[in-house]
């Protein structure tokens, strides 16, 4: 069985869905951050596979940008979780619903 681009795309879709599920259903803030990272990296798989298929370097460049952005987001996200933890000693996102309606 040859490993065509569709397999990579399917893998990417599955990983992305896992990430979405993680954001939707896990209540731990850290796990939600990880899930978001998973979504971005799932997309990276798609981009690399497509770039490889088309023999086009633009996709690879895009991946580098995505990695940099993901790193920045992770830094911001973790520092926000720390700040959040200082106001209320929990990382359960359901506990934070001061602003509503």
């Amino acid at each position, binding site marked *: 069985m040859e490993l065509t681009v569709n397999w990579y795309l399917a893998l990417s879709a599955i990983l992305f869905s896992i990430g979405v599920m993680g954001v*939707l259903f896990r209540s731990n803030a850290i796990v939600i951050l990880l899930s978001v990272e998973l979504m971005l990296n799932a997309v990276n798989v798609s981009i690399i596979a497509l770039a490889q298929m088309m023999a086009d370097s633009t996709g690879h460049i895009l991946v580098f940008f995505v990695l940099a952005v993901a790193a920045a987001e992770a830094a911001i996200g973790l520092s926000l979780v720390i700040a959040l933890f200082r106001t209320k000693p929990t990382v359960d996102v359901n506990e934070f619903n001061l602003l509503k*309606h």
Partner: protein
Amino acid sequence: MDALLVRLIILLPLAGAILTGLVPLFMPGLRKNESLISTIGTLAVAVPFGMVVYLFLTFDGNAFVATFYTWMAAGDLSVDFAYRIDQLSLIMGLVVLGVGTLIHVYSIGYMHGDDGFWKFFSYLNLFIFAMLNLILADNLVVLFLGWEGVGLCSFLLIGFWYTDLKNSAAANKAFIVNRIGDFAFLLAMFLLFRELGGLDFDTLLNGVDTLSSTTVTMAVLLLFLAATGKSAQIPLFVWLPDAMAGPTPVSALIHAATMVTSGLYLLARMSDMVLAAPGVMVLIAIVGALTALVAATIAITQTDIKRVLAYSTVSQLGFMFMAVGVGAFFVAIFHVVTHAFFKALLFLGSGSVIHGMHEVEHDLEHEGHDTSSFDAQDMRTMGNLKAYMPATHITFLIATLAIAGIPLLSGFFSKDEILFMAFQAGYNGMPVAYAVWAVGILTALLTAVYMTRAYVLTFRGEERWPEAPSIAPHESPLSMTLPLWTLAILAIVGGYIGLPGVIADGDWNWIHHYLAQDYGGPVADLADSAGFSLPLALKWLLIAIGGGVAILGVSLAWVAYDREGLAFDDRLRERLGPLYGVWEVKYRLDEVYDAALVNPIRDIMGQGFAKADASVVDGVVNGAARGAAAFGRVLGRIQTGVIQRYAVMMVLGVVIVMALILFV
């Protein structure tokens, strides 16, 4: 060169408004610098006045349009900021800027020491700017902008001393009543645009012939309704007397000389179209005559000096509408001009009187009197002011005689011309015009009576305020009396621009030759085209009747009030019985309006929400409002504040978007 002048004429007052308004707003230190503010404010009007004079003197008889730029061009509708210089706009410009300059000068003295001095000049300049837009506009859209602008300034200035609730209420009343007229204006614009595809005056007036008579009638009717709002005619005149709550220079400028005449200006500008709707013209004549009579009868009973003048203004505007109704547009404009002179003079004179009476009030307070019931505008506390305020007295007397129509003063010529035109229209086959003429003669008599009454009660007889004459008012400063004298001269000679037809067969009627279409002007004229002319003897008789009633009215009232003073009011009340009672309560029109219009609107707006079942309409409105708010609260429930609910909503949104993109 001329186009540049037009730009400057329009923009200088705006620049003045900004300089005197915004700069002191940010630099409170400048607010008290009255000399600087008044210099800028006055120059911003005086310089454009000079320019208009120049344009007037060099005008070669050919109208020209100065286009600033195309404001919006959407589809068929192209609206330019374009201004039209022709005989009509020049005359109006001279009046607005000339009287405006004098009133700015007067305000320097009148508003001295007021905390809002800078605001007042800013508003006045802004008003002049809006008024210039109104009278110089080349299309109805710019005219409408000016129309709304003067309405806004009027609102701001009536409520200038807004801390007094009464003044705010008057401002609101003026604003609301005027909205009715403005709505009619808008409808007229839509109608004309739909039928003619443009709103500049050339398109409108050249296209009159292509319109069906129903359309013309509707359009003119709507324009007339708009004019009744701005120019305070039946049924929309109730706001003007209340508008006297504003500072007196405002009453003189806006509510006597300029803004209230803009309805007349509109009809004169559209004269070709108005002439195509003879049915509406009959209505205009009747409304004008009725308004003139009703307002004059109310004026006889008023004791507040400014209210007398306010009702007098309404009455005089009624005269002008009579002229429009009989197709004599240039005469209406003629009366606009002379009325601007003598009515502005009367108001400024009354302002000078009020200024003096405030001084009395202040002194009384100083002496420890209870002045809470003292009213500086009430003629019942005045009397014999001629001894204390000689300049005010003489000028006020001149204005009184002018408005009464004493021969050889300005009011005589213009009012006589209106009555003459009404009679001539009757002679030419418009039966209702005879009735209009008769009402006009009666009103002229009443005018002479109530104005003489106001003059005598104010300036002659005994002093009626407490502690007279040890406490006495003084003459106002030069900045106030100078405009009075200037206007007094104009009130005397202003009429000679329109000498009656009996002299030189009408050839010396300069304003007729200047404005009328037969002589190359912009204003149509029914009298010229009709061709009939009265016999010379009849013309002399009409003039004699007009002058006669004026002299009769003045002398009767002079003798009666000089001899008996206030007591004569009681004699009149006794004599006339219920009739006087009806006048005194102003035909209960305010109450009728309150009951029929103002209260229901206020109730629906104010209490309607509390009484959902008051009426079906209320119910529906409330239902919708409550339903929307309740719906909002339900939607708000979704906003739980929990991040993951939000994320679920987003995923739902993703599904919707993807479904729409991929499968629809």
